């Protein structure tokens, strides 16, 4: 604890790791053990090709999980991301299919996501409605809108659009690069911007934050918009990878998977605590679990049980573990 008392070292400790980090994120140990078990039992888990697969799968999860985590830290929640993902992918794919340039197509998709996020944000932050109820309603409403607008499956978006999901930047798949950028941006935002501090303050005690002169509506509103945009981006990436998308099923259940990753990563649902490193771990954990169990030919419903149990076990661990680790 010689240097740990300085706020300056927090980001450094985050980067450098260290015992304190492990103690704050027991998931690191769990993840390492799990990877070891999968490697021993499958023999191919740590193959570069497989790791690349995990990273690509986890990328869309991470892109949405980071802004969602920020939203949860500030005391809100967004359950509508699954449908927003579908809408974003459909709008982007449709624009690409109409012959628009890939850039315009993607921006169009993002705009749709921003619109959904803005509606959520206005209702939750400015009108003060319950985020749980608003975004639960939007989950259903946006899905309905997507099906109304795009009743038929879309496919054949063209080679330009396929770049988003399929190309490589310095040997790394584009979605993974994007996810990396989002993760780094999220961590920097929390540690180094005033708004990042405000996110925590609002999540811990809104009333006290308000009385401290902080704008308690603007920042969470912006996070709702960013979360919507991120979900739409994930949708565009998925549409690009598959070269097709269906309004009815795209991103179904995604909202709960993302939330699981966020909560596994140590973000408290009550707001006020969490970290981007934790979110990364949560995403990697879910990705590895799914991948490993698939390699082991475990049926899907067992995988789902494992995923759900992991969340509950994590919660129990955090609740009952001796609080010596600080």
């Amino acid at each position, binding site marked *: 604890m010689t240097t740990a008392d300085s706020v300056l070292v927090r980001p450094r400790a985050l980067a450098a790791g260290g015992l304190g980090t492990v103690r704050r994120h027991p998931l690191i140990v769990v993840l390492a053990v799990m990877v070891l078990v999968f490697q021993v039992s499958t023999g191919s888990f740590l193959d570069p090709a497989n790791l690349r697969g995990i990273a690509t799968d986890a990328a869309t999860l991470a892109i949405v999980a980071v802004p969602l985590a920020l939203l949860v830290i500030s005391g809100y929640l967004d359950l509508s991301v699954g449908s927003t993902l579908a809408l974003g992918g459909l709008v982007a794919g449709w624009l690409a299919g109409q012959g628009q340039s890939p850039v315009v197509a993607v921006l169009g998709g993002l705009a749709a996501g921003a619109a959904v996020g803005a509606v959520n944000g206005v209702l939750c932050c400015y009108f003060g409605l319950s985020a749980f109820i608003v975004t639960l309603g939007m989950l259903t409403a946006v899905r309905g809108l997507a099906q109304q607008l795009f009743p038929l499956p879309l496919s054949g978006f063209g080679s330009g659009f396929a770049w988003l999901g399929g190309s490589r930047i310095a040997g790394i798949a584009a979605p993974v690069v994007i996810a990396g950028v989002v993760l780094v941006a999220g961590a920097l935002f929390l540690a180094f911007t005033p708004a990042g501090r405000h996110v925590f303050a609002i999540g811990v005690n809104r009333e*006290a934050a308000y009385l401290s002169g902080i704008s*308690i509506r603007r920042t969470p509103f912006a996070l709702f918009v960013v979360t919507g945009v991120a979900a739409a981006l994930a949708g565009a990436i998925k549409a690009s990878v598959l070269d097709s998308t269906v309004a009815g099923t795209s991103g179904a259940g995604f909202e709960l998977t993302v939330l699981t990753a966020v909560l596994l990563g140590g973000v408290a649902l*009550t707001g006020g*605590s969490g970290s981007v490193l934790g979110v990364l771990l949560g995403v990697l954990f879910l990705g590895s679990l799914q991948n490993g169990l698939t390699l082991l030919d475990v049926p899907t419903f067992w995988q789902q049980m494992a995923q759900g149990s992991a969340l509950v076990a994590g919660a129990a661990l955090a609740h009952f573990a001796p609080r010596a680790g600080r």
Partner: protein
Amino acid sequence: MTEASLRIRGLTKSFGGVLALDGVDLTVPMGQVHALLGHNGAGKSTLIKCLGGAYPPDSGTIEVGGRSYERLSPRESITAGVAIIFQTLSVVDALTVSENIFLGQEWTRYGRIDRRAQEKVAAGLLERVAATCSPRDRVGELPMGQRQLVEIAKALSRSASVLVLDEPTAALSTAESDALAERVEDLRTQGLAIVYVTHLLAEVERLADAVTVLRDGRIAHQSVGAGQRRRDLVAAIAGRTADGETEAGGGPVGDRRATNLPDADRPAGDRPDGNRPVGDRPVEDGPVGAASPGATDTTPRVTTSPATPVARGVGSPGGGLVLEGLRGPGFGPVTLAVAGGERVGLYGLIGSGRTRILETLYGRRRASGGTVRVGDRTVAAARPGDALAAGIALVPADRRRQGLFPTLSAHDNALLPAVRPLSRYGVRALGAERRVFEALAGAVGLRPARPRLPAASFSGGNQQKLVLGRWINHTRDLRVLLLDEPTQGVDVGARQEIYRVVRSLAADRGTAVLFASSDPEEIVTLADRCLVVAGGRVVGELSGAELTEEALLSAVHEASETSASCETSAPTETSDLSKASAPSGAADVSETPPAHEPSAPAEGAV
């Protein structure tokens, strides 16, 4: 059961090394009303909480209902026959009167609640306390006085033998207070042992058979039998003020022991770090309003010796705060002025409107009329951000709900409003933040001065220093500092440091200080001048030699007797805050109180 119903022996309780109760003995026989007096922080509430099972005492015994306990659990306390009626009542608004009375002890018949039988018994109990409400009334729709009677009836239904009333008249109108006094007299004849906590000496004179005055956790005065002289009681309550500014002379001081006060309690003026009593007690202001006439005949003239009476308006002359006819729900019109460098106290009981005045000034509540000026600028604060931009800052009363971020670090707590002003190009200036933190931690005497420690791990006093420190970090031009109950839940040592910080803000930076307090000692210690508030208005002004605890106690007593308009603001102020202009609620933040035990992990909870 013929003798003492409640006997407390040598009760001692400390918090983090600070003795809140130090060997307190208290015996209350059946059919006695025992008044418990003392300042905020004297140990009254700790005593009550030990009795109710909320705190385990360090040592001593509590004998109640014929059994002796080293410590009580809340359930044991109830079964032993102790009933505590707190200021903030614990009735459930959504339930009916009889449902409240039988909450947790419902009468059932074939597995169903026997509503009829309950209501019949409830009616009997209500009659016993002379409540006018019906068992079927919804408690939320009843006036405060009736709710209190419902709670007393509930205590009776559990066959309580010891009834503790914690400032029961604080939120009541005059008529309701009178009615309650009659009930207390009835209950005394019915054989209950009653502990009656109050600030009002008139209530003691009317009701008490015995009196105990606590001061700094010890018994400063204890007497049985009527006819306690008011001056004796006041002297015992006041004791020797730790500050040394006020010598409560006059009457014989009950027990003015020279306690071994830590260094921090030495007279602030003697300290080398500069608390020159600038602007101390301007005496040119005559008494105004109802405050003084009664003050003079009932209380001894107490010699208050301000070091140097300096005319008002020291510091920056134009920098003061002026309110003209400020009105809002539950208060007003209020007209007052605080010069730059001046410290003005707002003295009043709970419900007097003092909190509303401060919160309206700060933009937390909306004013319905009047003007506020800081210097020569008119300020219409619609939100705290506006007030802060005009140089007005507030240290709120309810630290846990309105001030603190328990799980965040001391650094974050103290610097929160400064992070953005300090930042450059949207990036935090971490070096500058650290320097500001070190400076303000030194200025307020934060202990331990560890920036990364979560705020919840600090003592109440140091938490308050963090909240106060938020506004003195030199990144803002602090023109007006508002404080609401600045030392509530703060130990004696930290209290002196907070006073020191506030004094030096006024003296060195010319900040106009307006603070509300229900503690006369605090007013006398910290204020140059005091305005007495009742029923949402300023009803009197005391300054200079007149500003004594005796005068304040008399003034507020008279104000509450004469001002019938008290009723308008009767519901406790803090409880309806959330409903006022509260920032519109999100998710479920308001329902989940921030984890505030020190053990709650800042990170890692799923």
